């Protein structure tokens, strides 16, 4: 066996050099990636694996469903609020609890705030260094950088040559002290970096500005959620009370002063995204528009559940402002409806995952999901069970299950949402995408790439920033009309609950479609299954042999140097992977360099 055709259209060839990247750094959680490259350094086989076991579901079994949100938001450090929101929605769905209008507006503002925050921090602090070379920035002429800033982001006030010279000097001091800090572990001599020095300096400067600015975005969630750094959520609404004339004090309700503060943050966020983030994407994109690898499943099979309900308690697609639907087999003319309750739509498979099912030929709908670990390596594994040198992808090889939609491997995330929205003719999304393509002078096909994924994230941050404003106005109007209700506690008492119920809650997390399925029995959690975005994107092969989104995105990419996998990191990072909740993380993590082995 050496060449395999997958049903989803890939030709996998596992001859040639095997390159192992373990762990993939600058992501949340543990992930390992193995690829085979041919004589021309082109990736011909890709294997992505979550290397640690996931224990989330078992922690929740038997607990009070009203507390589940607090546990799920501890799963990782980045999706906190999104998991919490998904969880309260699942419980509300199971118990048929409706929430007040104000709670819907506040939840949307918090969710959008997290969306923007995550996208911004992901781009500048976890992903930019796959495109930007900070060492090269030291060679930049501050005057040329200033000219570039004025040409690309004319409305950003920080643009003088002196400003860029100061930043460059700070950077120089940092590098000369031998302490590269966040910039260490880079492949700074690799020809895969294409920016001229002044673009590198501009981007590194914005890296620092974004690091400073991101703190403001978080304050919105702290105000409505009441606590740093883990906001409070509530089944039935939101935990904050509204009293417009109230005093400002710790634990005090939401008052006019706090709302004014939120209004200011929303405006400054729009400014930053539109005058810094979007221009940077266009500037960087213009140097990389010839590097259009990494599309993977994005032009073929994409999935979005939708989110941001306009009116409270209506989760139907027409009321969701973020697009929902599925596209399969590259047919962009047809967006199929998605029903998370239908046992035939979302199913998880385990023939290549370290779990057992009674019958592994079949997938299981999450309401009937089983999480039974079974760590077993294939016969062709090289190494030992405690020290794997090369995985055998023909057998079980990942702690991530393989979710499929009607049997199809799907990509989720900002690009999936934007492809679905574009296919549906969503006017705001279409406008944003068309403008970006025009600015870069590239055709629509360019969207289906690593660069497209990174651009879609930025466009979505912009969209989200404006929608925050929409819901803020809606909230204020509703309060002024005399409605200050934020929670419905009618069914908070478990004695009012039926003996056995089930529900599903969904959101669009920053990194993609997220849903929690819950079964409640005798007022306790009987079964809790999360299918998280990185489970979709990072999934291993299924029983038909379809490869998942990460694997597909790496296929046929040319790598400049096999021992410096910049291209692999660039594409995997473009998904904003979060392995913490898709797998369980345990063991030594640290700042160890990614070990790259070429064999």
């Amino acid at each position, binding site marked *: 066996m050496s060449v395999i055709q997958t049903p989803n259209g890939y030709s996998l060839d596992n001859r040639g050099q095997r390159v192992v990247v373990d762990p993939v750094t600058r992501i949340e959680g543990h992930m390992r990636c193995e690829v085979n490259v041919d004589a021309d350094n082109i990736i011909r086989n890709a294997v992505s694996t979550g290397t640690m076991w996931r224990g989330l579901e*078992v922690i929740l079994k*038997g607990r009070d469903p009203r507390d589940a949100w607090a546990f799920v938001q501890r799963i*990782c450090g980045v999706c906190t609020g999104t998991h919490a929101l998904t969880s309260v929605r699942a419980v509300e769905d199971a118990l048929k609890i409706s929430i007040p209008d104000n709670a819907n507006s506040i939840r949307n503002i918090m969710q959008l705030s997290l969306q923007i925050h995550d996208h911004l921090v992901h781009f500048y602090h976890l992903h930019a260094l796959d495109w930007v070379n900070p060492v090269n920035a030291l060679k930049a002429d501050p005057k040329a950088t200033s000219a570039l800033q004025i040409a690309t982001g004319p409305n950003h006030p920080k643009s003088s040559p002196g400003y860029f010279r100061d930043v460059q000097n700070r950077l120089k001091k940092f590098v000369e002290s*031998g302490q590269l800090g966040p910039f260490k572990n880079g492949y700074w001599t690799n020809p895969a970096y294409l920016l001229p020095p002044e673009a590198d300096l501009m981007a590194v400067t914005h890296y620092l500005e974004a*690091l400073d600015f991101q*703190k403001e975005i*978080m304050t919105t969630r702290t105000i409505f959620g009441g*606590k740093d750094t883990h906001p409070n959520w509530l089944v039935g609404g939101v935990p904050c009370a509204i009293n417009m004339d109230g005093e400002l004090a710790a634990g005090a309700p939401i008052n006019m002063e706090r709302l004014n503060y939120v209004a200011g943050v929303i405006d400054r966020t729009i400014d930053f995204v539109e005058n810094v983030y979007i221009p940077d994407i266009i500037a960087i994109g213009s140097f990389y528009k010839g590097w259009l690898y990494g599309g993977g499943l994005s032009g073929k099979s994409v999935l979005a559940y939708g989110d941001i309900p306009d009116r409270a308690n209506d989760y139907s697609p027409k009321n969701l402002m973020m697009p929902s639907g599925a596209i399969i087999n590259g047919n962009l003319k047809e967006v199929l409806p998605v029903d998370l309750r239908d046992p035939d739509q979302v199913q998880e498979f385990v023939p290549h995952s370290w779990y057992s099912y009674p019958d592994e030929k079949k997938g299981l709908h999450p309401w009937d999901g089983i999480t039974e670990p079974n760590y077993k390596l294939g016969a062709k594994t090289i190494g030992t069970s405690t020290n794997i040198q090369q995985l055998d992808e023909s057998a079980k090889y990942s702690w991530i299950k393989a979710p499929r939609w009607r049997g199809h491997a799907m990509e989720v995330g900002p690009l999936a949402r934007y492809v679905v929205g574009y296919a549906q003719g969503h006017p705001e999304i279409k406008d944003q995408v068309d403008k970006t393509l025009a600015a870069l002078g590239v055709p629509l096909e360019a969207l289906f790439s690593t660069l497209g994924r990174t651009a879609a994230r930025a466009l979505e941050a912009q969209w989200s920033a404006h929608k925050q404003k929409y819901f803020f106005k809606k909230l204020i109007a509703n309060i002024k009309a005399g409605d200050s209700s934020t929670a419905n506690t009618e069914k908070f008492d478990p004695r009012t609950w039926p003996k056995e119920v089930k529900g599903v809650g969904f959101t669009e997390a920053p990194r993609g479609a997220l849903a929690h399925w819950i079964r409640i029995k005798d007022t306790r959690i009987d079964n809790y299954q999360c299918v998280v975005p990185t489970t979709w994107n990072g999934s291993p092969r299924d029983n038909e042999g379809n490869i998942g989104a990460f694997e597909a995105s790496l296929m046929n990419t040319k790598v400049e140097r096999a021992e410096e996998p910049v291209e692999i990191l660039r594409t995997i990072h473009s998904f904003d992977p979060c392995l913490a909740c898709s797998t369980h993380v345990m063991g*030594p*993590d640290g700042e160890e360099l990614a070990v790259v082995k070429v064999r």
Partner: protein
Amino acid sequence: MPEAPPRVLILGIGNVMWADEGFGVRAVEELHRHFEFPDGVRLLDGGTQGIYLVQYIREADILVVFDAVDYGLPPGTLKLVEGDEVPKFLGVKKISLHQTGFQEVLAMAEMLGDYPRHLLLIGVQPVELDDYGGSLRPQVKAQIAPALAAALQFLDGFGIRGQSRAAPLPVEATISTSETTMGHYEDGRPDEEVALRIGDARLLTDGRWSGPGDFEAEIERILATSGRGA
């Protein structure tokens, strides 16, 4: 002109759901429950947040961190690390879910021109991490009180006094989320038959995680090979 009192951040980091990895958060919860501090002292449950913590660090002149740390010492050992050793150490053998190591977060604060003048890491060597949904082991839990005493003593050196509260704060007043406070967390745990607690075979065999054999030598090596200490 009298100098403004230093701003203090007391930070607990880690994940409460992986047994002893929750030490940092539990310690700061307990400190808040039993002691009150003058203005300018912030106690924070940092959980597993990475970059999102950078602003709190930038605002601090004095930083105290509680965490479960792999010192390669006998399980349950409490060890204090001060000053320049703190980031060096945190960046090395860190057991965490943090998207960015805490060392990187400190480096980011420094790049922005704000770095705490005084740092103290109060770490405990974990006994058990591989217990999903589990709480602190008795040896680690027993180190909470000495850890709090160490923090109080350190701050006392700067003239900052934590006062014992007349009565401990109720659960609802926790700085963390009340749904996950230690008592509630431990009481609500399902039986082992219902919810499997163990995991990855690679960690359960001889090859399981372990710390450096000799902590002092490891620190020496790190200091010798990195910019700041050299």
